[in-house]
């Protein structure tokens, strides 16, 4: 019998190369965060996504909405990610659990070491959560958190 060591080694290494990234991906999650400012003044809808407009009209009573930013936040299990928001606010996200169709995420809006809201959300994909209420100049901050398939 010939020595099969190189074949076995290459096979295992190849499996590792292909399998581990998938394992890593299976433990990661991405949350799309859209940062909005709702204002009682004006009547403008400055949004990239028109679908938000109808949702916002249904959900809130502000006459003006302005999109400040939008970004994906990659989350890894039990690793807290922090992003800066307007006027000194921070958003902290922490992926606590991930299943095939549902994620458990801790979301915190913080400013000056005070947590404005600290919540743990179980989101079934696709799911949308609006986090809002912190005051900013001429309005309030609204964060749209989306977990997509």
């Amino acid at each position, binding site marked *: 019998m010939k*020595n*099969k*060591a*190189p074949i*076995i*080694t290459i096979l*295992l*290494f190849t499996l*590792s190369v292909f399998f*581990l*990234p998938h*394992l*890593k991906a299976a*433990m*990661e999650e991405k949350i799309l965060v859209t940062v909005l400012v709702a204002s009682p003044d004006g009547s403008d809808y400055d949004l990239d996504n028109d679908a938000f407009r*109808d*949702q916002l009209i*249904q*959900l809130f009573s502000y006459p003006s909405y302005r999109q400040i930013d939008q970004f994906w936040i990659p989350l*890894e*299990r*039990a*690793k*807290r990610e922090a992003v800066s928001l307007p006027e000194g606010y921070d958003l*902290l996200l*922490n992926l*606590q*659990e991930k299943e095939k169709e549902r994620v*458990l995420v*801790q979301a*915190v*809006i*913080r400013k000056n*070491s*005070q*947590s*404005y*809201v*600290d*919540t*743990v*959300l*179980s*989101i*079934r994909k*696709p*799911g*949308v*959560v*609006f*986090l*809002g*209420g*912190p*005051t900013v100049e001429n309005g309030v901050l609204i964060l749209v958190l989306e977990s997509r398939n």
Partner: protein
Amino acid sequence: MNPESDQEEKAIALYRQYLQQEVERPQVARDKAEFLETHFKPKRRPVTSFLWAPSLAAAAIAAVWLIVGLPTGMHQPVDVTLPQTGPAYVTSTTAEPIQEAMMPVLPGPSVEVKRISSQVGSTMVYQRVYQEIPVTVVWVFPKG
């Protein structure tokens, strides 16, 4: 037939018989088997030399990759709740989800609020169905 040759043949046969008896003695047979076992035993290639060593090496590479490549917090405890500084308002007001007429039957809540608190005021949670997807709103009312 030559009598000398015949005698020689007999002597050889007698000698062979003697040798045969000697060789077949149990002690000699044991010594022979032991000798062959000691000096002519076929060498067995150790299993680890051609199969397990590279496999273990690959497994070690995979393990290192796993440790380095995967999130560092993989083995950390899941709950990394922020430390609470100062007295917190945990006067959450959780509202019942608003039921709309003709609301579609859904397999379960899209979003469940497992926990909510605030250090600056009261909070409220409500849901509305938008295009057959329940949309959850978490709202905080900062005091002052």
